[in-house]
């Protein structure tokens, strides 16, 4: 290699470095940082705030639904509220949650890199996200879009509520997603340390990588489509307006071309977290590394071919319905491959029951149950009955929200010692985990029943016969919210008072655990050379350590 000037001299190998939390003090050192770990933490704060906000909206909705008639808010507010809830949860919480927090934090370390390929782009994506969040929230609260998160025309182009500012906000959030996706893809491709071949990339990285590909390709289409709805609304461009020659169903095609893949944007990172958790707590090699790695990829690709299953009742030929149904089931096959591989990994593993592992079990239940109801609604004859009922609401909350939320919590506990160098209270972690699961089931299981019995979604009032199911669901929502707040408190308390954690408390072989308890600013003094896989549990910890050299 030619000798070139290196910006800032790397400390000698072995020198003791300060950790990234202490590497600079003051507000400036945080707001202008380009350290992927600090940016991850700042996303953490924002995204958790959004989760709380979205959760508060949900509680208002559920409270309103306690009685068949008006309860606490008016019908108009109700419509705005479910729109706010959906928009906040989808674009402000779920999409950025795992990638931008945990992906940002561990992805570079997991491939032996000192940072992402474009650290300043990473920081920019944080600010773009923050701007997008402010615009979206301000617009939704002030103008109050009442269209639901799906923005279906013709309603969305004729409603008196403001639509354009909201979709502009979401467009900005999309820009942030694309920035992050470019960064993750380029980093995974070009910055893996020597020895980390494609066959040795941790499974979480595969998941984030596949997610980024979907983000990169689907987000622009969505951004443009909803922007057109906003323009139709204000300027009457009529792209989707039948009175001006437009076709509202075309909107649905474009919207779901993005938003079906987008559900995998939300769930693939969760699958990645789960793969890490399973291997670590079973102390085993995954039953098949390639099955897990490539099925993410399969999902990412086939995910673009299933969108029509949202439109069975919007009018489509029998042939198309059959094709879209079949493609949807292919996705289910790829998901099932993962499930079987995880279970096979656990088989005869030495399982440790810590909080992340418990979340894995909840995840497994919700993902399988939710996925199977997905296959059911992907069958046209059944979907005609369930479409636009609470059954669909329950389906996607089980798989998407249940899946992402449990995995998010698993990740929050699993990487907590690495991120903050402290241990959380395990009994409290386990307890809140039970609470989350029970609350979740109680909230959404009754919704399957209500939907199957015919209760439509997004309705402000309903016949009295559905009340008992709604009351159960509302009770569950409060339980879920309580458990979430406790889980958060548990982590916040550990942040300050938790006992110090060792560098690798779960005895994982994955590379991010090679760093000191709290990683130093640039992760590694020099880029390491790694001569083993991330799941080499047949090696002892010393052997595993010895195969990583930080010398050039």
């Amino acid at each position, binding site marked *: *290699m*030619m000798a*070139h*000037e*290196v*910006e*800032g001299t790397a400390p000698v190998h072995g020198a003791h470095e300060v950790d990234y939390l202490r590497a600079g003090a003051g507000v400036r050192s945080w707001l202008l940082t380009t350290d992927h770990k600090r940016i991850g933490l700042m996303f953490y704060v924002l995204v958790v705030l959004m989760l709380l906000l979205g959760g508060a909206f949900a509680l208002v909705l559920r409270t309103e639904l306690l009685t068949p008639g008006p309860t606490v808010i008016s019908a108009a507010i109700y419509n705005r509220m479910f729109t706010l809830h959906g928009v906040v949860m989808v674009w402000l919480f779920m999409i950025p949650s795992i990638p931008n927090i945990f992906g940002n934090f561990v992805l*570079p370390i997991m491939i032996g*890199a*000192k*940072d*992402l*390929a*474009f*650290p300043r782009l990473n920081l920019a994506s944080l600010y773009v996200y923050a701007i997008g969040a402010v615009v979206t929230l301000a617009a939704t609260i002030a103008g109050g879009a009442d269209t639901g998160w799906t923005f279906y025309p013709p309603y969305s182009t004729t409603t008196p509520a403001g639509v354009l500012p909201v979709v502009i906000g979401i467009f900005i959030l999309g820009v942030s997603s*694309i920035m992050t*996706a*470019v*960064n993750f*893809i*380029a*980093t995974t*491709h*070009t*910055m893996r340390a020597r020895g980390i071949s494609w066959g040795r990339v941790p499974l979480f990285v595969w998941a984030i990588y596949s997610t980024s590909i979907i983000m*990169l*390709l*689907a*987000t*622009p*289409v969505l*951004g*443009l*489509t909803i922007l*057109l709805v906003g323009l*139709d609304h204000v*300027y*009457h*461009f*009529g*792209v989707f307006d039948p009175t*001006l*020659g*437009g*076709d509202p169903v*075309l909107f649905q095609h*474009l919207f779901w071309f993005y938003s079906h893949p987008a559900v995998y944007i939300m769930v693939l990172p969760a699958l990645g977290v789960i793969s890490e958790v399973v291997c670590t707590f079973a102390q085993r090699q995954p039953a098949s590394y390639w099955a897990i790695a490539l099925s993410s990829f399969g999902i990412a690709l086939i995910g673009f071919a299933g969108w029509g299953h949202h439109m069975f009742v919007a009018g489509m030929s029998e042939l198309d319905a059959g094709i879209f149904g079949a493609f949807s089931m292919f996705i289910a096959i790829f998901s099932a491959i993962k499930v079987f591989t995880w279970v096979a990994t656990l088989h005869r593993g030495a399982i440790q029951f810590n909080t992340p592992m418990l979340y894995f079990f909840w995840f497994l239940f919700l993902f399988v149950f939710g996925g199977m109801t997905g296959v059911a609604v992907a069958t046209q004859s059944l979907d005609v009955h369930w479409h636009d009922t609470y059954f669909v609401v329950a389906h996607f909350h089980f798989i998407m929200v249940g899946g992402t939320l449990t995995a998010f919590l698993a990740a929050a506990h699993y990487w907590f010692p690495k991120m903050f160098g402290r241990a959380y209270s395990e009994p409290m972690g386990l307890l809140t985990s039970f609470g989350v699961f029970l609350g979740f089931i109680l909230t959404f299981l009754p919704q399957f029943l209500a939907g199957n019995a015919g209760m439509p979604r997004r309705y402000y009032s309903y016949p009295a016969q559905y009340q008992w199911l709604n009351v159960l669901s509302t009770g569950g929502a409060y339980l879920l919210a309580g458990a979430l707040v406790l889980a958060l408190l548990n982590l916040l308390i550990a942040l300050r008072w938790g006992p110090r954690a060792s560098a690798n408390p779960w005895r994982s072989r994955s590379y991010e655990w090679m760093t000191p308890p709290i990683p130093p600013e*640039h992760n590694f003094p020099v*880029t390491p050379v790694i001569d083993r896989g991330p799941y080499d549990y047949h090696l002892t910890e010393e052997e595993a350590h010895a195969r990583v050299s930080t010398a050039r």
Partner: protein
Amino acid sequence: MPESQPPAEQLAPARLAMQFEDLEKQTHAAHFGMWIFLASEVLLFAGLFALYASYRAVFGHEFSAGVAHNNAVIGTSNTAILLTSSLLVALSVYAVRLDRPTMAGRLLLGAIALGLAFLVLKGVEYTQHFHEGIFPGSAYRFEELPQAGAKMFFTLYFLTTGLHAIHVTAGLVVLGWLTWGCFRRRYGAGNDTHIELGGLYWHLVDVIWIFLWPMLYLMH
């Protein structure tokens, strides 16, 4: 491009950022990032192309009439203008590689002038349309082609060319910044990544126009 002898020393050596092991990796990452970003840009336009294709399938005849009404002379001149500017940008990359940043800066200035000319022509065209009462959507007033299909055609015409013009403008800002850098002698042989990436972006803008040109001016 006149011949040039390799210089004795580099004008402005590339700087290696902390996170990369060597310059080769750094350049590779930058190129890779740019290419995948361009893929994303292509999909942004793909949504509009999909709309165009769908509505053309519905309103074939009226779309042809709309295309025929557009001024193919302006459209074609604009194509030639953009292609030439892309050529100048490509030459400027070459010049930087030969360690002649001033020359590169002049070539970029030429490209910028052509980009501006493109926008001016586009403005002329828009003005003509507005005079005829051709506006997007419900504001459409052009009596000769009153059908819903022509209205949709021109709405899509304004959307695609408008989005494209935004990209041209962004591209001009990038080129301007690179030009400034060239005249400050910030780039040179071995340090041409920025110029190359900016050039790639400009070529993308050009390529998208190559698709818009037949769609909006020729296919009738």
